[in-house]
């Protein structure tokens, strides 16, 4: 135990230097914790928008539908299949898609009509809570539609305005009807913002003369922390005749961007800590050279090289521990502040998107155990690596020449 008090005393002997070293480490750790928390916030927001606003965890389609979204490419037994998925503990909602022209006044635009399963969509996605103006669809209002915000701008419509939809129904006849804008969505992603018209499934079936089936079933795990691949396998086993893809397969670019962002955090941490490491190296080297005679005496009275290595390491670790504690607290406090307050970027641009997925313009941090542990663990690792040379220098000293060192 006296080696610990010796190390502490050594650290406090030149407390100015120790304070500067510890302060630098604490500051770097705090910044890195804040950075990691902000990155996690960005990732979580993107993933949440991709999955919870649109994709769901996995989707079921007829083979070939994704390449060619044809009105006739249906999951014929969609209602039964969705029911079966629900009985196996998944959330599942049918979706229908059609294309056509939406016109309001003299403006018109090509749109994607999206039939919404009013009973189940809310258990799969959070779209119903993502309304910018007005209300989400209601089962008792078949002529009320919800549209993307850029589409609303293109058509120059606001709540309550009427929109004519014209398209081709499945029997070749002209599908056309008059609808009223019931709600306008917040930004979800380029395709939804620009072209989506949400409508209840009964109204969709009536308009497009499509009495049964669906183009897509969106599936969500009931436990968000369970394994995505395993969940996809289970869904695929329940729908063997169809194509089942999880959201990472549906949006591989986004998935890869998210994976890379993880690595990016670690790269940033390492780069910053290399700078910190030189400070530690410098300080410890100075402290070793100051004490060469002292180490010579210690070795002369029988202290082993291992004991000296342990002493130097302990001195470093005492400082690192203090830095980790202070930096952790500071970083946590800062990250916590940005979790609640967020950085409002909305005055810089009206909408941000990341791989085609809209992100909330208020950038919030999100503290995960990882965003705290990664910077602190790396701080200890870097400190340990930086002190290898000073420790060996002190340990391998020859007592006689050390005592005569000037």
């Amino acid at each position, binding site marked *: 135990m006296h080696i610990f008090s010796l190390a502490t005393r050594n650290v406090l002997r030149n407390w100015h230097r120790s304070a500067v070293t510890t302060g630098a480490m604490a500051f770097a750790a705090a910044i890195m914790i804040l950075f990691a928390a902000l990155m996690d916030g960005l990732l979580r927001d993107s993933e949440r928008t991709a999955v919870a606003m649109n994709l769901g965890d996995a989707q079921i389609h007829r083979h070939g539908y994704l390449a060619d979204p044809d009105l*006739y490419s249906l999951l014929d037994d969609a209602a039964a299949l969705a029911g079966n998925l629900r009985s196996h503990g998944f959330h599942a909602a049918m979706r229908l898609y059609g294309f056509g*022209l939406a*016109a309001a006044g*003299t403006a*018109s*635009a*090509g749109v994607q009509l999206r039939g919404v399963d009013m009973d189940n969509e809310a258990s799969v996605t959070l779209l119903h809570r993502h309304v910018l103006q007005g209300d989400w669809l209601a089962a008792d209002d078949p002529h009320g539609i919800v549209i993307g915000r850029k589409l609303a701008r293109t058509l120059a419509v606001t709540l309550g305005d009427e929109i*004519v939809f*014209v398209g*081709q129904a*499945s*029997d*070749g*006849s*002209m599908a*056309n*009807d*008059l609808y009223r804008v019931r709600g306008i969505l917040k930004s979800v992603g380029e395709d939804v913002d620009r072209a989506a018209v949400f409508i209840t499934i009964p109204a969709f079936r009536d308009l497009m003369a499509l009495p049964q089936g669906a183009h897509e079933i969106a599936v969500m795990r009931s436990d968000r922390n369970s394994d995505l691949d395993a969940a996809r396998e289970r869904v695929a086993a329940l729908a063997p005749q169809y194509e089942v893809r999880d959201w990472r397969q549906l949006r591989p670019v986004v998935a890869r961007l998210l994976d890379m962002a993880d690595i990016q955090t670690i790269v940033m941490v390492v780069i910053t800590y290399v700078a910190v490491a030189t400070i530690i190296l410098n300080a410890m080297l100075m402290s070793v050279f100051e004490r060469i005679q002292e180490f010579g005496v210690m070795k002369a009275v029988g202290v082993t090289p291992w004991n000296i290595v342990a002493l130097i390491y302990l001195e470093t670790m005492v400082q690192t521990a203090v830095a980790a504690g202070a930096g952790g607290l500071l970083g946590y406090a800062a990250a916590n502040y940005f979790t609640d307050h967020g950085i409002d970027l909305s005055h810089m641009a009206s909408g941000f998107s990341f791989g085609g997925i809209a992100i909330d313009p208020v950038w919030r941090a999100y503290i995960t155990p990882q965003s705290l542990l990664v910077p602190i663990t790396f701080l200890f690792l870097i400190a340990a690596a930086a002190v290898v040379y000073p420790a060996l220098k002190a340990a391998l000293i020859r007592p006689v020449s050390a005592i005569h060192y000037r």
Partner: protein
Amino acid sequence: MTNKTEKIRFIFRVLAWTFAASAALTTSASAADSERAHQLLREIDDLWRGQSSHAIMTMEVKTAHYTRAMTMEAWSKGTDKTLVRILSPKKEQGTATLKSDTNIYSYLPKTDRTIRLTSGMMSGSWMGSHFTNDDLVRESRREDDYDASISFEGRRDGDDIIEFTLLPKPDAAVVWGKVVLTIQAHNYIPLTELYYDEDLALARTFVFSEVKTLGGRLRPTVMQVVPADKPDEYTKVIYQELALDIAIKDDFFSLTNLKQQ
């Protein structure tokens, strides 16, 4: 030796002259040919369109997913104005399409609204058929947009025919890469039209049949279009009545009249 060289030189000279002469002849022949081609093209275009027209026709559409028939009434004046109104089936009765200059308007009786089709909708199907909205708009004379040449003249499949190849003029805003027309040689009645896309792959085939006297002259009364990628599908237009050069005012082709039933 010298003799032989001179002989060879003489042969080359003859060949060169022959080549030059034939090239000159071909050029002048093709100029005359092109003039005649354009003349004939004008006649074919005039077959369907007098100064104005009124027609009643039936359209049959067969696709992999549905078969349907519609009766419609159409009026036209010049190349810029066309109005088509659906007479049956009941569900779409009164649905009308107005082409005025380069705009297309659709009147939808179910909603009592008139919409203008955007350029994005031009390649979309017109009334569920194999015609695009663009087909309705592009009724300008083909000789304005294409360079025509006669690519075959003679007997084919027991008929004396003339085949034209139409290539778009460099600055013409047309969607086709090539059009090949075949007409009967003795009366210039069209037989087929083959449309090729920009990669010169066959996109669709028009076949004309049932030649009868209608609207004061002999003409095919049935036109069938088959898309090249779906040979089992077709759209067939059967002319029942046709009157050309009728008296019709410009304001007939107005948005107000579009709604009349």
